[in-house]
């Protein structure tokens, strides 16, 4: 924070034309993650793997301990000490999806033929059913996703070898993927090729043949909704948690009707409240691509149980508990949860305390500053809110920090092009939580194939912008209407974050 303020002071003092007014000072802020930012002139493959720098040595140690568990490969062998994987899962460690704590990438799809999601993918499908309205009210007052009977709310494409006799290492079903391509053409004739992954489910475990000879599965029924989820970066999560609820709700109260923008909070199930016997077990959603989880703890330990099948005291049941798939394997599973509270909370701490990298060399170049100003004038900053001061957090280093996450943590209708047609609490299929942009310019440094948006479809920032619709349509159109040089400036600004 100090460096940024100093910079702003220097800049304002020597800029005789005073073109940079205070409201635009965000374009000058270097340490987006506050005083604990990881400051470096260059990006590196480990830029997202740094602890908040202002923590005490004891807390740095705790962070490193959590890192060990984040990187740990779990085993499905009950005789081993690292047992806990599966029996149905999407990957074998946190770090296998969160590649170096950054974004994941889609599988290699040669010649755009249907390709089976294999091992070590950073994407999976969320699933649920959408019953009639009355049934919905009765079963899910707050809009909780309803599990697909016999499945759950997540499709596990991997499984222990012995989970399915005729489909080794397949979980509930195989997931196959390829792309649909479209072109976007600017008024000046420039064409950008856009791609969107589409998915197909094959070989579900409950496939059966009815009396008429038709094969069917519950996952193929018309009320099933599904949406892909690509792993997001891990940086700055504790800082997002430290933003005061009132500041987020204040953003929801803004009148941005002239832009067609109306951010909404998601109110979601909170496992910590449940564990502490609260009557109201719902909290403001902040994490997950639809803001469907309230805290780093809930998000992280839910992913342990969900993505890897590693149970813990917050999520003690196997992810496929109560479904026929688990029955044959049930006797071989250990009864106790797979990781201790100490381990679980160390991983949560690790996830809360990954520093946001500073902006790099060159971030004060004229075209980047110009792009930063245009970022606001075309409306990007309506949702990609650049300025917050955090409130008090249990981790002192995260408290009272001036941060620039570039998100309002609210849901926005992003249009049909991005819709997954799947409800998640108050989020509709078209709704997504504004993604934080801090560190986004390092995406390719960390993972050269890293993809943007909820399913990793966008290979570049430009593609991601062009997919914006719904409430972001006006901003997208204003961006698209800019001269090519101005568009490049906006992209350079985003890449400087």
């Amino acid at each position, binding site marked *: 924070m100090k*460096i940024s303020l100093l*910079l702003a002071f*220097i*800049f304002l003092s*020597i*800029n005789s*034309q005073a*073109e940079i007014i205070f409201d635009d000072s965000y374009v000058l802020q270097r340490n987006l993650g506050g005083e604990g930012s990881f400051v*470096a*002139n*260059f*990006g*590196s*493959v*480990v830029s997202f793997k740094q602890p908040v720098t202002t923590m005490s040595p004891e807390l740095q140690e705790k962070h*490193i301990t959590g890192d*060990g568990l984040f*990187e740990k*490969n779990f*085993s*499905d*062998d*009950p005789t*081993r*000490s*690292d047992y806990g994987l599966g029996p149905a899962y999407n990957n*074998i460690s946190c770090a*296998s999806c969160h*590649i*170096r704590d950054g974004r994941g*990438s889609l599988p*290699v*799809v*040669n010649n755009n033929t249907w390709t*089976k999601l*294999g*091992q*070590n*993918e950073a994407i999976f499908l969320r699933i649920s059913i959408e019953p009639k309205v009355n049934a919905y009210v009765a079963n899910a007052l707050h809009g909780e996703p309803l599990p697909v009977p016999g499945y759950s709310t997540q499709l596990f494409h*991997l499984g*222990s*070898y*012995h989970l399915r006799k005729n489909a*080794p*290492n*397949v979980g509930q079903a195989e997931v196959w993927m390829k792309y649909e391509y479209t072109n976007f053409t600017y008024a000046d004739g420039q064409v950008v090729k856009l791609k969107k992954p589409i998915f197909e489910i094959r070989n579900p475990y409950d496939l059966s043949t009815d009396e008429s000879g038709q094969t069917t599965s519950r996952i193929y029924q018309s009320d099933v909704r599904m949406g892909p989820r690509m792993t997001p970066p891990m940086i700055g999560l504790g800082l997002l948690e430290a933003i005061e609820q009132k500041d987020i709700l204040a953003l929801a109260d803004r009148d941005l009707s002239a832009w067609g923008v109306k951010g909404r909070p998601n109110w979601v199930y909170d496992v910590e409240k449940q564990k502490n016997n609260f009557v109201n077990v719902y909290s403001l959603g902040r994490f997950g691509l639809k803001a469907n989880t309230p805290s780093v703890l809930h998000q992280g330990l839910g992913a342990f149980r969900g993505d890897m099948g590693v149970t813990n005291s917050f999520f003690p049941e196997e992810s496929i508990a109560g479904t026929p798939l688990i029955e044959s394997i049930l006797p071989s599973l250990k009864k106790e949860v797979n990781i201790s509270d100490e381990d679980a909370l160390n991983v949560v701490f690790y996830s809360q305390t990954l520093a946001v990298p500073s902006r*790099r*060399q*060159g971030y*004060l*170049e*004229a075209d980047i*500053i110009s792009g930063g100003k245009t970022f606001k004038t075309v409306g990007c900053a309506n949702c990609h809110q650049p300025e917050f001061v955090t409130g008090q957090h249990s981790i002192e280093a995260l408290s009272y920090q001036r941060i620039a996450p570039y998100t309002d943590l609210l849901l926005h209708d992003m249009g049909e092009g991005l819709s997954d047609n799947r409800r998640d609490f108050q989020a509709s299929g078209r709704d997504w939580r504004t993604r934080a942009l801090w560190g986004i310019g390092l995406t*390719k*440094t960390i*993972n*050269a*194939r*890293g993809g943007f948006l909820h399913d990793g479809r966008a*290979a570049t920032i430009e593609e991601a912008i062009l997919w914006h619709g719904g409430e972001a349509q006006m901003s997208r159109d204003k961006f698209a209407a800019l001269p090519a040089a101005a568009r490049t400036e906006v992209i350079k600004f985003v890449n400087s974050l």
Partner: protein
Amino acid sequence: MKLVNFVVATLIFGSVAVAGPLEKAVIDNVSKNVILQTYADLAARSADMLVAVKNLEAVRTQENLVKAQQSWIAARIPWEASESFLYGPVDSLGIDPMIDTWPLSRIDLDSVLNSGQKITTEYVRPLGVNLQGFHTLEYLLFGNGIDSNTKDIASFTQQQFDYLIATATLQAEYTHKLHYAWTTQADPDDASMPGYIDVISKPGLDNPIYSSEQAVMFEYVNGILGILDEVANGKLSDPLGGDISHANVELVESPYSWNSLADFENNIRSVYNIYTGTYGTHKGTGLKDVIAQTNPELANRVEQRILQAMQKIKNIGGANNMPYNKAILNEQGRALATEAINDLNGLFQLVESEVLPLFQ
């Protein structure tokens, strides 16, 4: 406005050295003669390993088993010597977990071997990452590693031979892809993407990943720090436990071949290679030469500490050349392991506090 920005930028970045011919030469040498050559050797030796296991299956003798074991050890060297530069395609193509996931799932592997299924490459390909790669091959070639690091050729089943060939085929395929991604096309889905060698050895403002020579060298140093930390505080420390009663041999990597200490030494060898620009008999310029321009004493001190760390790891085995899964159950071995860990952490501190700032 540009002038103003330049002034501000100078204030902030004034300490960053301007890249000269030496920096360019270092990047060229390290990228082409160290990194690329390591991957070339990995691909070639993995192909050799496939030949060796096929020969073993064709002529089932103890001698051919030893040759296959030696081919595994030979392929393991460049892989472990690549772990200070785990950036680029090895991550973005997901190759690291496909060829080196630890632990393997022995319970699942036994299930596969006893399943009665015909074991082919295409059968193994979609199986778990914990059923493929170096450690699966290691277990099949060397046995369980408890009392010895070899097995009787007579104990092999046809299923084990089939699994060996299938896994070695995939290993050769993945390592070839990795080399190809560095030389020719970094992203198989993007024909416009050059080989990663061009990405890392041609930094500049039009490079989406490395904007300058300093950025590349910053990456080199961070890679060095990463593997120093992993060897000290993961590979060596995790199995060691706080005391002998908490030693956990399950956590020792490469326990079947008893090759753990050689693995770790080669990890630090990869640090040495990047630092000095050395690979095998090749000697070029490395990070050391850049540091030596302004601080030759530091440049030499770091090199000596790297060599010392390698020696400390080698020492853990003691006079009897104990494998690490035995050494951690032995007081002397534990003391030597602790010494090596402390030494590596000292080297980490040195690089972090005195080398990294030169490139930050």
